[in-house]
């Protein structure tokens, strides 16, 4: 599980330093498994018992612990927590960014604007309800004393952004906002000092600032959640390597390896770098790289790549390329650049703003010129222009989209889906074709034993398989356990990479491996030296809800395809079980990308669901990408949405939520548009009063927020 729930991602460890009043935290660790008060106490007690730890404070919301322990290495903390039964991971430096300070400043501004708005509003109520002459003047002056400093402080972000846009000779939404706020303030000051006898706009300027700041805060919370999700994903995999130094193994961070180092790779380890095997033989699981579900054998002289998993034998590997130079890292970088291209996708809000900003200026200027020409009264014309600007100002528009995406993202997070990209929801809503990868996505990537083999044979096979980490061996050992069969006692078990296992049982030599009698098909054979042979059939294990998810998607009218790098037989079998018509086997990563691009060029909006390195390209070029939490980190960083629960029903769920969210965004934009259509003529005609503007502004902002919060039907 991950920490930053999008709803409460406004907080960040950097801010929480106030907790550790005396010291900066020396380490921030990620605790993926904590979930209750007992976990908090357990973690804090374990750390505090360690000599040298001055302070430890768990943040359950972010699932992190901050430790003040000067001079103590992070690994010591991680080991201590492991002894106490808590999994802890080092967080990358990205997590220490002070991005939270920004959110805190924004919240303070919201607080100031809200306070000033309420006070000025109370004073304005008195004026609206008939206070006149000296009282009205006094109230205006008091309002000015509150509103001017409050606006100057609270609306600073809008002024800064508007200035930046004007310098670059562009118009953004902040230009009309700043103009409205400044004009309203200046005109109201003139009124307060007796130059004019129109009504004051102080409350409107403050209400505008307040609602727009709320919209901006929600928008930033979404971005922050995306960033902290990325930091977290980086933390999930902090690869380590066993480097051989003068014949001794030392555990080092994979990024410190250099070309020419000798490293040792044990069964079950994922290779930390590209290299050549110098010693040992092993079956290599390359599913993450190629999608092939059957392991391949590699021996001295063979090249191995970062991301492959060593299954059966101990290897010594000479590093050829490490760190950023590995094929895996280069691919991840490629993905990062193509991802930034996708970030140019303009969401609904951007498109609306592009049309809206010039329109507002034109309307305001037209109102001023029209009224000045008709009446020759400068103050009155200015008053009408301000009312047009204030009323058209996109309070509701500023809230319309971020409110919906914040609510939807936090609902998805609670359902185990981590939305990483800001425009992901809008892109997901446009999807019409869903493409699945097979190995690791539709299947768990782990084979299981099928059929009902002979019990005695299974017992011997399980005895042989017990110590091996080859997926076939594990499947057999697991099947024996599930059937309640005790593994037989086997002597002298040896594992021969690429061949299988060998051992003695009751005086006979048994062999478990791929080779068996000619002419009969089986995944694994158990054979004895005197001619006994028992076949075992293995099949890929479909994820529990794969069939359900595919059926739901089909029922909702999505086109579904299966692209796999695996052999045609295995692919056809899965496609048939799930009822997928378009199934392509033996696809190289390039083939997959070409296929997805061709579909995209033909007008289809493709969603890629995949987990391997061979899917990474597709995840990046497709209109949107989803990866299971178990995916390779390159795939996870290319995807827009991560299925933290690993359940495939998250895919239809995400698509459904995205469609609802997009509908809500459109409704909200239509709502604020409708409100403008009604109010602009009133303002242009000169009938809009500050009172009317205050009511309209509050109700429209409230309407869009409530519409965003509405539960799904």
């Amino acid at each position, binding site marked *: 599980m991950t920490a930053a729930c999008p709803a409460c991602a406004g*907080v960040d460890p950097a801010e929480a330093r106030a907790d550790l009043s005396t010291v900066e935290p020396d380490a921030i660790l990620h605790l993926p498994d904590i979930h209750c*008060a007992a976990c*908090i106490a357990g973690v804090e007690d374990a750390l505090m018992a360690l000599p040298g730890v001055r302070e430890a404070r*768990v943040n*359950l*919301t972010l699932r992190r612990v901050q430790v003040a322990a000067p001079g103590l290495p992070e690994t010591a903390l991680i080991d201590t927590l492991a002894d106490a039964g808590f999994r802890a991971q080092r967080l990358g430096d990205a997590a220490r960014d002070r991005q939270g300070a920004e959110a805190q400043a924004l919240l*303070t501004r919201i*607080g100031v604007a809200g*306070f000033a708005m309420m006070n000025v509003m109370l004073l304005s109520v008195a004026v609206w309800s008939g206070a006149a002459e000296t*009282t009205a003047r006094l109230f205006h002056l008091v309002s000015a004393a509150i509103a001017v400093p409050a606006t100057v402080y609270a609306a600073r972000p809008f002024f800064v952004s508007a200035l930046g846009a004007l310098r670059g000779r562009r118009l953004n939404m902040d230009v009309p906002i700043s103009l409205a706020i400044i004009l309203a303030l200046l005109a109201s000051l003139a009124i307060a000092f007796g130059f004019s006898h129109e009504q004051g706009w102080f409350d409107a300027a403050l209400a505008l600032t307040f609602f727009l700041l709320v919209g901006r805060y929600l928008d930033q919370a979404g971005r922050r959640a995306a960033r902290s999700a990325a930091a977290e994903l980086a933390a999930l995999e902090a690869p380590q390597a066993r480097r051989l130094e003068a014949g001794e193994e030392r555990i080092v961070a994979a990024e410190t390896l250099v070309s020419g180092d000798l490293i040792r790779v044990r069964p079950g380890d994922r290779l930390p770098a590209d290299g050549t095997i110098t010693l040992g033989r092993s079956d290599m699981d390359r599913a993450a790289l190629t999608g092939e579900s059957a392991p391949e054998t590699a021996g001295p002289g063979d090249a191995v790549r970062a991301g492959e998993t060593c299954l059966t034998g101990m290897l010594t590997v000479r590093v050829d390329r490490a760190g950023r130079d590995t094929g895996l890292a280069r691919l991840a970088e490629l993905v990062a650049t193509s991802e930034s291209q996708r970030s140019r996708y303009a969401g609904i809000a951007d498109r609306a703003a592009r049309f809206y900003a010039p329109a507002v200026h034109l309307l305001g200027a037209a109102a001023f010129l029209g009224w000045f020409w008709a009446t020759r009264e400068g103050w009155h014309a200015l008053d009408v222009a301000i009312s047009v600007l204030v009323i058209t100002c996109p309070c509701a528009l500023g809230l319309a989209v971020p409110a919906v995406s914040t609510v939807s993202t936090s609902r998805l997070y609670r359902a185990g889906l981590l939305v990483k990209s800001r425009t992901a929801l809008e892109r997901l809503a446009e999807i019409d074709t869903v493409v699945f990868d097979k190995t690791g996505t539709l299947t768990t990537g782990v084979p299981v034993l099928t059929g009902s083999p002979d019990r005695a044979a299974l017992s011997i096979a399980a005895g042989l398989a017990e110590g091996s980490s080859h997926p076939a061996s594990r499947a057999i050992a697991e099947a024996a356990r599930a059937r309640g069969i005790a593994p037989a006692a086997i002597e002298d078990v040896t594992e021969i990479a690429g061949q299988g296992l060998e051992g003695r049982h009751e005086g006979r030599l048994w062999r478990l491996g791929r080779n068996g009698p000619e002419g009969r098909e089986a995944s694994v054979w158990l054979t004895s030296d005197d001619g006994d042979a028992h076949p075992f059939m293995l099949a890929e294990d479909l994820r529990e809800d794969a069939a359900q998810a595919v059926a739901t998607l089909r029922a909702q009218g999505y086109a579904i395809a299966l692209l796999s790098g695996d052999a045609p037989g295995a692919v056809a079998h899965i496609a048939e079980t799930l009822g997928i018509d378009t199934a392509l086997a033996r696809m190289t990563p390039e083939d997959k990308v070409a296929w997805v691009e061709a579909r995209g060029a033909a007008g289809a909006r493709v969603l890629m669901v995949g987990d391997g390195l061979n899917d990474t390209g597709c995840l990046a070029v497709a209109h949107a990408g989803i990866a299971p939490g178990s995916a390779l980190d390159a795939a996870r960083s290319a995807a827009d949405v991560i299925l933290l629960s690993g359940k495939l029903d998250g895919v239809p769920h995400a698509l459904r939520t995205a469609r609802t969210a997009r509908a809500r965004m459109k409704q909200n934009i239509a709502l604020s548009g409708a409100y403008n259509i009604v109010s602009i003529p009133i303002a242009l005609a000169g009938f809009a009063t500050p009172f009317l503007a205050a009511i309209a502004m509050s109700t429209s902002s409230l309407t869009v927020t409530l519409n965003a919060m509405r539960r799904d039907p």
Partner: protein
Amino acid sequence: MNVLVFLIPVSVTLGLLGLGAFVWSLRAGQYDDPAGDQARALSDRYDDAPPPPRD
């Protein structure tokens, strides 16, 4: 209407107090870990004695 001379400063001061309280709670990190505070509030670990001071 002379009463306004007192009432307006009083109301503004009260409002400022509220604002100050909000800013203080924000700075003190009270919104940093809502889930954790929720869990800690029900923990009876330090009911009898406060945690031992550390040097």
